């Protein structure tokens, strides 16, 4: 029987603020899971801490709400122990690029086959609106006592140099577009990163839904508002690495695109490179049956509860009469 969208929803009361951009991401994840017909027990959503951290509780799959900044290590540990799991990790920009920045970079070096979605709104919402890592220097969102004193980190560029092999950006009010990006991220072979612009209606009074939609960005010729986001695929940009591509040029273009902001904010796929071996491939090169017999699937005892692992070879080596 085909799984329906409702099969991916829980009864848990959602306490996000009205108008929160997180709703669009949540819906897009559920729609993507339904369209891909991933059985509810086959997926696990991991999250960090903050408003975005509550996401797994609203999704009827395995849901692991972890620690602040540590979602990637938790998610990688589970995926590497059981590569059959569909793993999606989610968290805020403070979670992933502030307290968890070290894990973000290190995850890129590994290229474990999972999708990481950052709910990117520039503020720490649940602690009442402090500046988060993607907030631009000098901006003063409404609960800041002083303008932001730190420069912002660019998640797309950081993901690229860290080694993520799929890098995309979505906008939480473009749900269908976002859903497609999630599907592509899940299907990507390797570590996928999806930066989702997600207005916080309560604390980020600068990068609001209206701002993204260009309420104040009027085309002088037409007199119409011009949305600040545009789709990379509509602009003829192609970030997919093919075998004969010059990788350096391709990566330089990603950085160029990642630097666009203001009235022209690109969304869509910035980069995809499936030529980098996944961490699972790398383990397989050492352990030939890893994918069929990963840690989570191994028998360790017999029906008498005796260990089935032997260490005779090692013990033999340590025996004092073995000369």
């Amino acid at each position: 029987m085909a799984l329906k969208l409702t099969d991916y929803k829980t009864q848990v009361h959602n306490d996000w603020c009205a108008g929160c951009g997180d709703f669009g991401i949540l819906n897009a994840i559920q729609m993507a899971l339904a369209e891909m017909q991933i059985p509810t027990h086959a997926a696990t959503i991991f999250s960090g801490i903050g408003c975005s951290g509550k996401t797994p509780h609203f999704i009827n799959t395995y849901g692991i709400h972890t620690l602040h900044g540590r979602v990637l290590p938790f998610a990688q540990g589970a995926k590497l122990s059981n590569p059959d799991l569909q793993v999606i990790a989610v968290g805020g920009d403070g979670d992933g690029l502030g307290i968890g920045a070290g894990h973000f970079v290190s995850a890129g070096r590994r290229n474990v086959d999972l999708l990481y979605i950052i709910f990117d709104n520039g503020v720490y919402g649940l602690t009442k609106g402090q500046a988060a890592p993607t907030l631009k220097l000098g901006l003063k969102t409404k609960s800041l006592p002083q303008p932001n004193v730190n420069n912002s980190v660019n998640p797309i560029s950081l993901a690229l140099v860290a080694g993520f092999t799929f890098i995309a950006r979505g906008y939480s009010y473009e749900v269908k577009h976002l859903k497609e990006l999630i599907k592509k991220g899940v299907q990507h072979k390797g570590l996928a990163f999806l930066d989702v612009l997600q207005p916080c209606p309560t604390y980020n009074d600068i990068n609001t839904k209206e701002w993204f939609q260009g309420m104040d960005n009027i085309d002088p010729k037409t007199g119409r508002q011009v949305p600040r986001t545009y789709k990379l695929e509509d602009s003829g940009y192609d970030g997919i690495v093919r075998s004969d591509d010059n990788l350096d040029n391709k990566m330089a273009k990603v950085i160029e695109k990642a630097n666009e902001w203001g009235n022209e904010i690109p969304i869509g796929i910035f980069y995809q490179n499936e030529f980098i071996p996944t961490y699972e491939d790398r383990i397989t090169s050492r352990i030939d049956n890893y994918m069929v017999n990963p840690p989570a699937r191994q028998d360790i005892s017999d029906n008498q509860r005796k260990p089935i692992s032997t260490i005779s070879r090692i013990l033999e080596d340590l025996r004092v009469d073995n000369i």
Partner: protein
Amino acid sequence: MTPNNQLTWVIGGAQGSGVDSAANIFSRACAQGGLHIFGKREYYSNIKGEHSYFTVRVSDKPIRSHVDDINVLVSFDAETVFKHADMVTDGGVIIYDTSLINTNIRDLPTIDEHAEARVTSMLEKSGNEFTIKGMLNHAESNGVFLCGISYFSLIKDFAQKINEPSLSKLTRMINVMALSASMAILDFDRDVLAKAIRRIFKSKQKIAELNVAAANYAYDHARTSFANLKFPFKLKCKNPSSDILLVQGNQSSAMGKIVAGCRFQTYYPITPASDDSEFLESNQIIEQRNGKHGSMVVIQTEDEIAAIAMAIGSALTGARSATATSGPGFSLMAEALGWAGINEVPLLVSLYQRTGPSTGLPTRHEQSDLMFAINAGHGEFPRIVYASGDIEESFYDTIKAFNFAERYQLPVIHMLDKAIANSIMTCHTLDPERIEIDRGKMVMNFRPDIGSESEAKSKNQQAEEQNLKQHYLRFKLTNGPISPRATLGTEGTVFWNSGDEHTEDGHITEDPFVRTQMMNKRMSKLEVALKEIPDDDKLAVYDHTSQDPGRPTLSPEVIIISWGSTKGAILDAIDQFRIDKRDLRIKFIQLKLLHPFPTQLVERALDADSILVDVEMNYSSQLGILFEQNLHRNIDYRIVKYNGRPMSSSEIYNALLRIHSGDAPRRTVLEHGT
């Protein structure tokens, strides 16, 4: 009296000059010669150049610790002579490099000023100059034999003999030549030595043969040069027994992990814990009795926070998972430890303690993380803290620790330390089938592959599991605190975890009643564990009070309590009392389960009138504090040490002697160590 086959042999030299491999050859040779050894390695936090040394105690009978005295000191640099010559006993021997005879201690950059001041003041008192010559004079006046070797001419002559033009290639073998010279003086069977060398270099046959030739050359040289030496210590080889192993402390717990079914280990490099992970990575393909092969994924993470978080993620999928670290790394793990606690995740943390706080003495020993292990993390959550006393124990304890983790669904902190990790000893062969695997309450039938191994499920069991899956609740409040554990990916048992307080299905709640219920559920697991864990696993009692069959059983005069790697030195000290025929009735209680604390069992093991002595490698006698918190009885004497060097049995022996004679202070601080 100097019986055969009883001695302490020490080799020292600059780090990187082959001290370890010489000591490994010596240990291996003695073990292959049917002798028992206990060895310990001391080294600086440094790659090359600083002083390192290796102490190996040899005996006919099993031994478990080192002593302070040295009988054979093997050196090929000056610092070793300055640092250790004073500990060589009457009748002992020092092998030294004759070309260093005029080297002044003040010219050695690696000796720090404090050590230098201690040596020079000693030499000043005995009227000797501050050179190797002065130091050797000083030792000679203590009755020590001196064996000078010109390593340079030895190498030169050897090079000529084998037609090797490159001397520098051969100087790397000074360590083996010095070792071999000591073997000649000890009358050790040169064939056994040659076999040990080949064994150590077994993967490099050419190098092995070159070393054997060099060893033989040095052996002959020493035989000729020191033919008239009336050296009393000899090592006589016997046939080795096939059930004796020569094991290093950083191998045993790792072997336990393989047998226990650990299939995922994470780590961030740290002394002295990394060896555990590196051993596992070297042995990651696991042979199984069913003919198939298993494997372990070993991951070097970006930090210890990631290490524990990854291990928890893995444990959620059902794989037995562990991380290995030392104090500084464990400090970083505290938050995630609490997450594992509130989400009832079985996890093993191997905590190889070293000297703290902060970076402390990074390569030295201490047992100062007991209180931290018991209390690490904010809030209250159940965990088990379990300590091993020696290499052999740590193998079996590792398997038990995994069983505790899964049976009670909580993190287990397995206390190990630098003294265990960097020691080597002969011990009984390890029996991989002695400990059963206990996976606790699990929902397993999602795994058809498991059905083949386990017995067919009864209809009742099937019905029960079906029932469970009707509405699976990960944290179901049943008639006991432990709920059946499902793992990620299982069909029909979707659940949630959260570091927030949660309901039975794992969703966030701030309800005061649920909070109380869940706290009760989690914390009461400790009571269950305390009830169920067999007494023999909680503590070990070594009662030496009624050994003499002719005499009535008397209560002990002294009861020692301790935990961890002090075990060997305590037992050897107690043995020494017997050997010396000193009439002191001692009982030793070795605590293994430290949290939850087995109060009643300890109470039963005590005798009312005995003097209670706490022995620990830390400043504040942490076990003593724990003991007094739980038992309403005071510790009478404390023997502590915190200079980074493990306790020797001689130190414990002397401290007990003073306590027995009534003139010991309430707290004795041991200070021996180089």
